[in-house]
């Protein structure tokens, strides 16, 4: 449509663009500039070129934080995406069943992550927590421990909470996709004598490949940006065992006052997230997948 007055479209789009440019784009550029300096947030800035980047790549805690988040992502892909897919498969195979299972398992998704984290810090509590109490109740006293305070179990304990929240979320997406599959396709496979598990793996999952890929992308890029759960449950501890890029750089900037160094880490983290997103989209486009 041609605008009544030539300026009209710009006037309609301007407020959104201005707010976005002011609160997001300008700070993105400024963060990039900060990353090339040594600066405490106050007083003079010293230009240090790529010094902060060199430092970050040699910082064991920072490099370790990427390992931790990668491990977290791998485990959550199993606990959230794979488990959600199986749940959706079972529920979708018996059409007409109660929708309440889906409603129930989706519940934690809408709660604030901080609330979930505080609740689970009690579930894992060494003195009165549900996990230890359950283990004692079935005679496995030997297994009780301070789950979040033990470097051997802390990261896995955080992954479990994440799984508790998001398994239902991915299940809802997969369920919606599975119910779109025409029944004739499944009927045909069944007539060929394929069992339910085989139909699921060979017919249904390939047919919802698109949803599976999008969920994997969400799990990976979302995983990199996780903050609330780690910050509240472990704060990166014990002994940096659960330090991830977001918690580490937040601490470096806002507690240690190293704005320049933290900005460089933020730029590196952003590069990874954006790169994963772009590579993923390229791969899909290359195969000619529909969005």
């Amino acid at each position: 449509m041609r605008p009544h007055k030539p300026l009209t479209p710009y006037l309609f789009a301007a407020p959104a663009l201005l707010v976005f440019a002011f609160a997001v784009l300008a700070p993105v550029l400024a963060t990039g500039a900060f990353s090339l300096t040594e600066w405490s947030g106050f007083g003079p800035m010293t230009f240090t070129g790529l010094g902060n980047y060199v430092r970050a790549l040699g910082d064991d805690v920072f490099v370790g934080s990427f390992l931790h988040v990668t491990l977290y992502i791998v485990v959550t892909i199993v606990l959230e995406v794979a488990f959600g897919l199986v749940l959706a498969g079972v529920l979708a195979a018996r059409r007409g069943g109660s929708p309440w299972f889906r409603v129930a398992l989706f519940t934690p998704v809408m709660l604030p992550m901080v609330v979930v984290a505080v609740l689970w810090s009690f579930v894992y509590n060494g003195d009165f927590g549900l996990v230890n109490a359950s283990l004692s109740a079935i005679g496995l006293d030997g297994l009780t421990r301070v789950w979040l305070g033990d470097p051997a179990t802390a990261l896995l304990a955080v992954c479990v909470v994440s799984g508790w929240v998001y398994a239902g979320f991915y299940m809802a997406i997969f369920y919606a996709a599975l119910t779109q599959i025409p029944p004739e396709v499944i009927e045909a496979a069944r007539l060929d004598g394929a069992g339910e598990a085989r139909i699921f793996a060979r017919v249904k999952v390939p047919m919802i490949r698109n949803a599976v890929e999008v969920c994997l992308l969400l799990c990976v890029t979302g995983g990199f940006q996780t903050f609330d759960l780690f910050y509240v449950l472990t704060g990166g501890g014990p002994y940096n065992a659960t330090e991830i890029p977001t918690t580490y750089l937040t601490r470096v900037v806002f507690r240690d006052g190293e704005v320049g160094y933290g900005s460089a880490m933020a730029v590196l983290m952003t590069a990874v997230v954006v790169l994963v997103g772009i590579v993923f989209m390229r791969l899909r486009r290359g195969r000619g997948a529909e969005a």
Partner: protein
Amino acid sequence: MRRVPRVLVTVAFTALSVAFFVPMIWMVLSSFKTNAEIFAGPFSLPTGLEFGRWAEAWQMGGIGGYALNSLLVTALSVLLILVVGSAAAFAFSRYVFRGRGALMGLLGLGLLLPIQSYFIAQSRMFTELGLGDTRWALIVPYTAMGLPLAVYLLKVYLDALPAELFEAARVDGAGDLRIYLQIAVPLLKPGIATVAVFSALSCWNEFLLALLYIQDDGLKTIPAGLLAFSSRYVTDYGLLFSALSIITLPMIVIYLVFNRQVVAGITAGSLK
């Protein structure tokens, strides 16, 4: 055919759902207990349903104040996202103009960029501008963060409307603003509802910026407020469980009533 019996599936899923809710059931039960009772037996039932601790958490603990702040910040942010976002979506969807693709691409960056790419400089900027420790320090970034997805989704809805509708209004002599207000907005209602659901939830639940930008306890929203609360009453577990219950239960009730809209809103909001 080796089909798993229906009953077995139902039983398994019922067990799973119950197990899923155990932490929340335990939370509510514990909110009625004293510290001694909590330590004595996590599975024991409370001696009575005493709501005194809930009232204490709400009033003296300040949960009520946090809830009010969350409500104000969320309502204003969502309103801004909807008004500003629908106007931009209208421009991008219905008009052809110079720079349209580039401007849309710029806004599209917001779908990819993590908070970490801008929050360091943003916090410095807000402090310089005197926005630090005000509600605007949350409302402005929440609006900016919500806009890219809102514009994108609303544009998808608008693109699906027939062009003749708008041409006819133009022939009848309606101006641009009138076409937007009287044709586009009413037809956009389902899209606006979806955007409102996921924008509201993400503002309500946002924690990182709320933690860093707001120091004044009187301005804290629920996530950051709950954390302050839990460090204020570190070992008063009964009170902490009460606070958690007060925050969680209303959200669960709202969710159960509007579960279809909430699920649709959240999944649409994350699938982009």
